[in-house]
């Protein structure tokens, strides 16, 4: 299976199963399309097929274009060589190994999302966590529960050395003292067990002060700072309990934290909704504020919510993704680049095939822990009792849910089999699927369409960077 599209001035061919990426001229692009549509990829040796394909291309490009028959034959031979080399129309032979990684690493947990505070000092109406309460009571995690969670992680991490812990909420800084004590505890024990804890803090910024900045910049591998971009957009949703916007209170704090962090290992993370499908303006607002590591996520909310993205928003969002890729290329060339989380695709060093077909890791290697120590498949399932897996004291007891998630892989969803992006998303988000369809093995189609657009942009940007930077000149 291939996927072909045009973006950033390039004609791009993705070979799904091999992961190969090709940039072509118009002639080759059309030739590959004709081969694909005619189903000729396994018959390229036949003279009759050569004649049919080159003839069809000739109809599109008359001789007056300067294209000779020898040119067409040469192009055909190049395509044929790539097919023989397994870089074009490669068969997907991975299904038998789908699930092997999960089987091999069954019971090994390597990441926890600690819900350190089920409460929040902001009252954002679009919050999937219902203002931090996850449809439950307000609560904060005690040091004892957090300590037990870290012990649980170590006990269940097998030979994994890198252990990831996210301090999440609600607003984790509302329980900052416990965050600090847990990090101190982890540092105390990691050497003994030959582990390396990597912490992430996600915060709305309201409680950031000197102490938080010093601590976060010393101990957090990554900080995720919530900002929706333009002041008027941010202050529409991200308000306190008096209804006041938080933009002016948090931006100077974020700027100081990032500056003192050396501008590295953070994300300025925004959410866009029906109110701002033109989210590129929010990206630009973040850039104007001096931030360079950015993420804007489509809202995840209940059906019918005022922020829900609509069908009318879809083309606008797609256009924004394209313009974002163009802006990034412009900024590259101007010597002031920035990062967009979803476009950070590493074509040469990205995930292995096992990772690509195994699914997201929720419930198997990644779990969320509530303030009471209950375990859930991920942070987006917290509060939905039927997904409760067990707790950090006695471990996982809900084997039915565990088995359901363990069987989630890229081949578990019929819709993914025909999707060119399946090895870039690995089957997508189980929580989004569940909320959209009622099944963790369902498909959140709107999210899939956005994901495919992001991948087209990400790959095109990578192609532009690799080709233009390698040539040392612009096209």
């Amino acid at each position, binding site marked *: 299976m291939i996927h072909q599209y045009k973006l950033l001035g390039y004609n791009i061919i993705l070979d799904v199963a091999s992961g190969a990426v090709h940039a072509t001229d118009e002639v080759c692009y059309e030739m590959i399309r004709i081969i694909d549509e005619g189903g000729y990829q396994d018959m390229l040796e036949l003279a009759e097929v050569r004649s049919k394909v080159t003839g069809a291309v000739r109809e599109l490009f008359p001789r007056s274009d300067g294209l000779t028959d020898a040119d067409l034959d040469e192009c055909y031979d190049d395509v044929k060589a790539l097919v023989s080399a397994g870089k074009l129309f490669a068969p997907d032979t991975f299904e038998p190994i789908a699930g092997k990684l999960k089987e091999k690493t069954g019971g090994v947990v390597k990441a926890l999302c600690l819900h350190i505070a089920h409460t929040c000092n902001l009252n954002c109406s679009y919050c999937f966590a219902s203002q931090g309460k996850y449809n439950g009571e307000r609560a904060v995690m005690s040091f004892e529960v957090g300590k037990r969670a870290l012990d649980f992680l170590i006990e269940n991490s097998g030979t994994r050395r890198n252990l*990831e812990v996210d301090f999440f909420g609600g607003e984790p800084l509302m329980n900052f003292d416990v965050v600090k004590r847990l990090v101190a505890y982890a540092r105390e024990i990691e050497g003994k067990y030959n582990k390396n804890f990597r912490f992430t803090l996600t915060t709305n910024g309201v409680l950031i002060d000197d102490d938080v900045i010093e601590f976060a910049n010393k101990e957090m591998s990554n900080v995720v700072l919530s900002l929706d971009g333009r002041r008027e957009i941010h202050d529409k949703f991200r308000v306190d309990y008096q209804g006041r916007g938080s933009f002016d209170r948090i931006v100077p704090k974020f700027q100081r934290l990032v500056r003192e962090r050396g501008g590295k290992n953070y*994300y300025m993370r925004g959410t866009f909704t029906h109110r701002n499908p033109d989210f590129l303006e929010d990206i630009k607002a973040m850039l104007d504020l001096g931030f360079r590591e950015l993420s804007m996520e489509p809202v995840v909310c209940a059906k019918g919510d005022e922020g829900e993205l609509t069908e009318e928003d879809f083309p606008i969002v797609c256009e924004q993704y394209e313009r974002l890729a163009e802006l990034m290329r412009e900024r590259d060339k101007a010597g002031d680049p920035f990062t967009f989380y979803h476009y950070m695709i590493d074509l040469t060093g990205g995930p292995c095939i096992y990772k690509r077909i195994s699914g997201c890791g929720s419930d198997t290697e990644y779990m969320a822990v509530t303030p009471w120590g209950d375990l859930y498949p991920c942070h987006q399932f917290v509060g939905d009792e039927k997904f409760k897996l067990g707790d950090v004291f006695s471990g996982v007891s809900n084997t039915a849910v565990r088995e359901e998630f363990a069987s989630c892989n890229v081949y578990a969803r019929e819709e993914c089999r025909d999707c060119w992006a399946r090895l870039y998303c690995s089957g997508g988000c189980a929580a989004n699927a569940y909320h959209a369809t009622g099944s963790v093995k369902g498909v959140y189609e709107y999210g899939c369409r956005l994901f495919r657009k992001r991948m087209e942009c990400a790959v095109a940007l990578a192609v532009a960077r690799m080709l233009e930077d390698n040539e040392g000149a612009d096209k």
Partner: protein
Amino acid sequence: MERIKTIETRKLCEGNGGCGECQTSCQSACKTSCGIANQACENTAEKESK
């Protein structure tokens, strides 16, 4: 004339993958719309053998 340029990519069909040292999908910035394409491989043994 070169009509097709192949970009250097990781060969999905090769490698001793599956060490599991990489991040789980929904960490870092995302939390709501995960994929795996933007994650780094952390298989140090495989990297060293390249």
